[in-house]
């Protein structure tokens, strides 16, 4: 509890660091903030071409929204994912990048990884707003779901912060983490139903009983990936326009709390040694 009070006490510093990231990032670029849209748009074009047109991923139309637009369906999962992966990636490097500061000034270290969450969340909110406009134009009705959407975004941010805290400490002790993380995230995106619908996995799973005679099914193991559930919530809210399954909320809540609890614990244990370890 004391630790949370300490973090709360540094909220002004946290805010200033977030605005340093946000304002410093696109300084001296011609298009400024628009650049944060370019990356997801490029991914959208590539995946739509490869998986929408060539492989014919064919997700089911939104129920009850009736939307049947592959790029929009894709973005509902892709934007939360790019947020998550950018938080994890930039938190992981945040302590090493600010080594000079850590060795010279005493302040609550946890604000460094947390500030990357804030900076990525800022971009993400911008991207999501654009997506909501696009979905509305395509015929979806997202307005009433916005409060729940904000809640889901907050849950994912908490989950990402927890994972980021953990990796920020790993990176201090093992600099390889940064490179390993790039590969890990590549695997992770393909193990999450972002560019293909989960029904493909469910169909495949139904063909086999339990794997190697065990009661574990393919889908059961697949479901262990927390991002599966986060993506499900986002799709149901903004693409299908319906109440997400309460069980999905519960799973996401548990994952988020577990990640942030464990991340904080590990961070706190190592925080005092950071100045020496860096």
């Amino acid at each position, binding site marked *: 509890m004391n630790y949370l009070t300490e973090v709360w006490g540094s909220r*002004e*510093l946290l805010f*200033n*660091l977030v605005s*340093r990231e946000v*304002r*410093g990032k696109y*300084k*001296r670029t011609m298009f400024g903030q628009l650049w944060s849209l370019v990356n997801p748009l490029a991914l959208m074009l590539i995946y739509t071409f490869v998986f929408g047109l060539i492989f014919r991923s064919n997700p089911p139309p939104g129920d009850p929204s009736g939307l049947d637009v592959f790029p929009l369906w894709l973005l509902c999962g892709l934007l939360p994912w790019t947020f998550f992966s950018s938080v994890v990636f930039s938190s992981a490097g945040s302590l090493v990048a*600010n080594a*000079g*500061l*850590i*060795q*010279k*000034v*005493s*302040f609550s270290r946890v604000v460094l990884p947390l500030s990357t969450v804030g900076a990525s969340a800022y971009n993400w909110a911008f991207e999501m707003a654009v997506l909501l406009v696009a979905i509305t134009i395509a015929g979806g009705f997202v307005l009433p779901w916005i409060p729940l959407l904000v809640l889901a975004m907050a849950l994912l941010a908490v989950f990402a912060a927890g994972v980021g805290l953990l990796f920020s400490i790993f990176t201090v*002790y*093992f*600099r*390889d983490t940064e490179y*390993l993380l790039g590969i890990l995230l590549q695997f992770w995106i393909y193990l999450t139903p972002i560019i293909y619908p989960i029904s493909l996995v469910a169909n495949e799973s139904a063909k086999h009983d339990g794997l190697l005679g065990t009661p574990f099914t393919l889908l059961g193991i697949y479901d262990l990936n927390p991002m599966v559930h986060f993506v499900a919530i986002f799709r149901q809210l903004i693409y299908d326009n319906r109440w997400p399954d309460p069980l999905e909320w519960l799973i996401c809540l548990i994952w988020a709390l577990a990640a942030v609890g464990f991340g904080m614990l590990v961070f706190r244990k190592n925080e*005092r*040694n950071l*100045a*020496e370890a860096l």
Partner: protein
Amino acid sequence: MNNTAVRVDHVTKSFRMYYERNQSLKSAIMRRRRSVHEDFLALDDVSFDVPTGSTFGLIGSNGSGKSTLLKCLANIYHPNQGSITHFGKIAAMLEVGSGFHHELSGRENVYLNGSILGMSRKEVERKFDEIVDFSGVEKFIDQPVKNYSSGMYVRLGFAIAINVEPDILVVDEVLAVGDQEFQDKCYQKFRDLKAADRTVILVSHSMDVVKGMCDQAAWLNHGELMTVGDAEPTIKSYLDSLTHDAS
């Protein structure tokens, strides 16, 4: 009123000197253990009290543990044994301008740096004019700091740090920069702090500075505390040891 500002109580700090440090997974797995190291004692059972309102100098040759002690005082390192107790708000100036963002303007950096040093937004707002005035960069305050000369950079950093107005200020050798005029301004500021009954702990290699400013001093040699007490005799015994070594 407590008349001790900082109590350093049997502080011991050792570092691991790594011969083969595993900062990569490959080496960790290949060797099956974390690393090979030996402990190096940077501070060995150091104890002293710093009286409130005094200017306290830390002297000693290179590698004597002054900076380590300063970092322990500043809460950056944590002693292996013993404890450091401070009575009052402490701020450290080990390097000026840490955390400046080069693309942001001087004004934005004042707010950013102020909050890193523990000031609230209101405090920075209140002291903003004083900070800018002290630094002497008024004309360039809305320019990005990457365009500042190194002198301007340091002056702005110093002006922010000194306006944190702590009860106890810990200063590393940061005064060697800046021109004569700015240095005089700094020394005047230290005298003002002293007059306001604040405690200053500083490290310097310039015995003239220590003589001129400090009323108490501690001499460290290879992590051990040699003498502590009034500045004059402490400096004298330190200088004597140097000439003794030389002859």
